[in-house]
Structures are given as structure tokens and as C-alpha cells.
């Protein structure tokens, strides 16, 4: 598949503070790409650079291979769904959606047809005459999506579009956005700080921190094979601690040697080890090598979260089995669930 958008060596700074540090990214056509990171990581700036609202000091933006770096926002063939919807309060739903078509001087009957299509697409039939301020947050968001899509953009940019909605509504809108993306067959570039949202919706996740890309990959890759402790910690919950790679397929931590599936780090090299809380199996104390004492137990709905103190670490375990605080247990980790990363400066433990 060809790249629809490429960012080449983009550098953005405001008042001397670097927001994007020589940033490179290629986005394939018809993909659902999510830019994920904590606030201040540069994800929104990346989106605004593509939209044309931010002029990078260095670097180029390519759209279908053409350099659009100098093209002002209103001439770019991308449309944006804004964080706070940014609907025009002085227009009704119909006129909000028709805005882009009126600007391009589309004939009236064509406008009516397209607006009707869009209202059907976002499930807002019959809302034409409604005042936008009388709509709920979810409905306003649908209008914002319809308004952006009516111009047939090849790329839709979404800046934390579900951030203001409550959990249940957010889940519903996630599915709806996916359906709309499949139905329209266009590229979505989605900005969020919600890792679960990113994993649920994306074809490709771009994890960012401090204006730099930490990892690009499918949701499975990002979750199962985090590139560094930051990604491991940001995507889901993790136990991250220092260990030593004895040789290929054998790692040591807590003074115990564990077989694993990673290789190529060398022999007797310090590494970071990641184990997801749900990948640790609880056994009775006499049945395992790695033992610990339960310190706290929290009910989380689907599972219990237990903090378990072993000789050297405090483990976080998610399990549907419940143990009482003070219980002695053993922990079993199978080789596939032990993930080894190159040691980085600043790792805890």
C-alpha cells in the first residue's frame, strides 16, 4: 500500500521548547492510525502540522508524494474533527454540515443529497433543523464528524474526539467511528491519550513521548512486544524490573533462572524484564519457585488486583482467583509471557 501522508524530519518548537524533534512518520492509505502518548508528547502538534495549523520550522509534509508544507490549511485535502467539536453555534445542524460544500460552491441539490447521506451515516436523520447547542455531547460529535466527512477528504484527522464523552457513550462511538472508517474507506489519523481506545480501534499505533516516536506497530505488537519500559508502562499495566540475560533463551531475576523466548542480547547482559499482571499464574506456596506474600487485594470488577511482595520486587497480579492479604503464594510465569528489553537508563528497580 502506498503512503498517503509522510512527515519528513519535522521540527517544531514554541518559545524555544521543542515539541517535535526531527520527527519522521509515514501513514499508509486507508489505515486507522492512532497517535498515542501522555499530554505534552506532541501528538496534537503532529495532527495540527498535517492539518496546516502549525508551520514547522524544518521538515516537509508530503500528501500523496506532493510537498504540501507551504500549502495553507484551507487548501489541504484533509479535514479535522476537533476536540471540543467546534461547531458553528449560529448555524443549525444542516448548515453546519453544509458549510464546506457551500464554500466550494456546490449546487444546492447536490448539497442536500450529500448532507442527507452524512446524516444517515452518523445516525442523525431528522436532526436537520435542530440548533447545535440543543444537542447532547455525543450528537454534537456526530455532527462534527459529518461536517468533516461531507467534503470527501482522503484523510480525516481526529483530535481526542471522544475525550469529553462518558465511558459508555465513548465505547459506542468507538465502534461507530470504526464502522464509518470502513464504510468510507479513508485514512483516519486519531489522537488520544487513552491506551485502551488506541488498542481497540487502530490498525497501527504510534506511541509518542517528548516529541519522539517510541514505537510504531500493530496493537498486538505494541502490547506484547513493547520496545522500551516507557511503552510497556504506558500501554496497559506491567511489572518492569532489572534482570540478567544468562544466554539466549535463559534469563535470571529474583535469583532464579527462567527459560524465555528471547535471544540475541549476548551473554550475562543486564536487561529489563516485563511481565504483564494478567500473565502471572497463582499457585499454592509449595508448588512454585518464585514465592511471595500478598500485601493488598483490590476488587476491579473482572478480576482482583493483588500486590505481592517477593524477595526483591513488588508484583502486581491480575487474577480471577482471590487470595487474602498475608497469604503466601507461588507465582508461575511461562516463557512466552516473559518479555526481555534492552536495558535503558532510568529504569526503576
Amino acid at each position, binding site marked *: 500500500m502506498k503512503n498517503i501522508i509522510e512527515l519528513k524530519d519535522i521540527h517544531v518548537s514554541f518559545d524555544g521548547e521543542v515539541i517535535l524533534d526531527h520527527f519522521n512518520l509515514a501513514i499508509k492509505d486507508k489505515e486507522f492510525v492512532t497517535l498515542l502518548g501522555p499530554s505534552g508528547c506532541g501528538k496534537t502538534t503532529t495532527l495540527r502540522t498535517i*492539518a496546516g495549523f502549525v508551520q514547522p520550522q524544518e521538515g516537509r509534509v508530503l500528501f500523496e508524494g506532493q510537498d504540501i508544507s507551504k500549502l495553507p490549511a*484551507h487548501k489541504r485535502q484533509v*479535514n*479535522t474533527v*476537533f476536540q*471540543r467539536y467546534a*461547531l*458553528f453555534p449560529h448555524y443549525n445542524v444542516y448548515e453546519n454540515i453544509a458549510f464546506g460544500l457551500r464554500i466550494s460552491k456546490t449546487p444546492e441539490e447536490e448539497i442536500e443529497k450529500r448532507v442527507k447521506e452524512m446524516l444517515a451515516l452518523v445516525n442523525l436523520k431528522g436532526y436537520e433543523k435542530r440548533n447545535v447547542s440543543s444537542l447532547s455531547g455525543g450528537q454534537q460529535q456526530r455532527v462534527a464528524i459529518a*461536517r468533516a466527512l461531507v467534503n470527501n477528504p482522503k484523510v480525516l484527522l481526529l483530535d481526542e474526539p471522544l475525550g469529553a464523552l462518558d465511558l459508555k457513550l465513548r465505547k459506542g462511538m468507538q465502534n461507530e467511528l470504526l464502522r464509518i472508517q470502513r464504510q468510507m474507506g479513508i485514512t483516519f489519523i486519531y489522537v488520544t491519550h487513552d491506551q485502551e481506545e488506541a488498542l481497540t480501534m487502530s490498525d497501527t499505533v504510534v506511541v509518542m513521548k517528548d516529541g519522539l516516536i517510541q514505537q510504531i506497530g500493530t496493537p498486538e505488537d505494541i502490547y506484547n512486544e513493547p520496545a522500551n519500559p516507557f511503552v510497556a508502562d504506558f500501554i496497559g499495566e506491567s511489572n518492569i524490573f532489572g534482570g540478567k540475560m544468562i544466554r539466549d533463551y535463559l534469563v535470571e531475576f529474583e535469583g532464579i533462572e527462567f527459560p524465555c523466548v528471547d535471544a540475541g542480547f549476548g551473554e550475562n547482559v543486564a536487561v529489563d524484564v516485563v511481565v504483564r499482571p494478567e500473565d502471572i499464574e497463582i499457585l499454592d506456596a509449595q508448588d512454585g519457585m518464585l514465592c511471595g506474600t500478598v500485601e493488598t487485594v483490590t476488587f476491579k470488577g473482572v478480576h482482583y488486583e493483588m500486590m505481592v511482595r517477593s524477595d526483591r520486587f513488588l508484583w502486581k497480579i491480575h487474577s480471577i482467583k482471590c487470595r487474602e492479604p498475608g497469604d503466601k503464594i507461588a507465582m508461575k510465569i511461562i516463557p512466552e509471557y516473559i518479555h526481555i528489553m534492552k536495558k535503558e537508563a532510568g529504569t526503576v528497580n
Partner: protein
Amino acid sequence: MRKFFEKSYMALIFGFLYLPIAYLIFFSFNEGKSKVIFSGFTLKNYVNLFRDEEIMQALLNTLIIAAIASVVATVIGTMAAIGIQRLRKWQRNAVMNVTYIPVLNPDIITGVSLMLLFSIFGITLGYGPVLLAHITFNIPYVILAVMPKLRQVDSSIYEAALDLGASPALAFRKAILPQIMPGIISGFMMALTLSVDDFVITFFLKGVEVETLATMIYSTTKVRIDLSMNALCGVMVLVVLIILILANLPQKKSGNKKREERI
């Protein structure tokens, strides 16, 4: 007892406010020449008023100066407000403080200083200086009326219009302008009223050839007793009353909705 005081308090206030005006208008219908002895009803003062070329010229001057000054001030003031809104915070505060100075300054200082300014540059006082002065003192009021509206506008709405293909000028006209229109209109109305109303500044800058209603009434009442001035005041009160009633009519119809918009 308490009710009685409440009522008389109100009566006192309205009495002080409106009795002098009522008195003035009452004597505009006086047959005789006196301003204190009513000797019979007539409309001749009104007829004279509209036949008096001097007064009609002053009225025309007032309306032309007010119209031009308020339109120009509204345009400049609105543009200034947009510029100020985009400044950094400390710059914005600095400019806004400078904007407040002419508003708080006594008119007489504005009038004298402008008169000195024009004479330094050797400009003959008259129509031009009066017009420039009116535009100048109106601008801050327009800025102060537009700024709060502008501050309410979500800046991403402008970006949304750009994003949907509108050029910057069109995006402003379609997305921003309709939202700040109430502020612009109230700024314009304020400028218009202040301009019609102004005496002090006009007095210093008018030179010998130009008279507005305010300066005309002042100079006339000083030298002669003329009841057509009373008639003129009567007409002005009537016009203001009509404007007030018209301005309040649509508001009553749509009730709370309009009021919400204002807040």
C-alpha cells in the same frame, strides 16, 4: 408605613430625573416668550424650529458627524479588538490599559489636547478635526464592547472554518463575525450616542464655522431666550423614546432566549 417610604423614594428619583425634562417640554408649547409664565398653548415653536435654517444645519452636522464617526470607529475598533485578542497576555493587558485611558479621561482634557495637537500642525479647526476627534474618542468604546464577545468565541471554530476550505477572510466573515455581531452593534450604538451627545470635545475643535446641536443649544441659550430650543429638546426626547421602544420590542417577544445570548 414602609410601603409609603418605598413609594415616595421611587417618586423622588423619577421626579428628579424627569420633572426638569417635562418642564422643558411643557414650555415648548408656550404661546408667550417666557420660560416661567405659561400664557397659552401653541405649536408655533415647533414650526419655527423646522423653519430655522441654523438649527437644521446643526442637526444635519450632528447626524453626519455621528454617522461617519461611529461607522469608522466601529470598523477600526473591531479590527483593533481582533488584533488585541491575539496578543500575548501581558501585551494585551498593556494595550487594554491604554485603551481605558481615553474612556476615563475627562472630556475637557481630550478636547484641549486635541485642539493643541491640531494647532501645532497648523490645521484649521472645523469639520475635519471634529470628525477625527469623534472617531478617536469612539474607538475605545467599540473595543470595550467587542472584546468580551470575542473572548467567548472558541478559537477552534475559526480553525474549523479554515479546515473546511474557507479562506482566512471568509472564515472570519462566516465563523467569527456572526458571533461577535451583538458586541459590534452595541459598540456602534454606543459610539453613535456618544457622538450625538458630545459637547465638550466638539466645542474645542469646531472652530467658527461648524455647529452641532449640542454647541448650538449651548450658544443660543446663553444669548437669547428662545422657546424653539425647548421644542428641539422635545423632539430629541421623543426620538430617543421611539428608539428605546423599538429596541425593546423584539426583546420582549423572544423573551429569555435573547437575554441568555447576551450573557
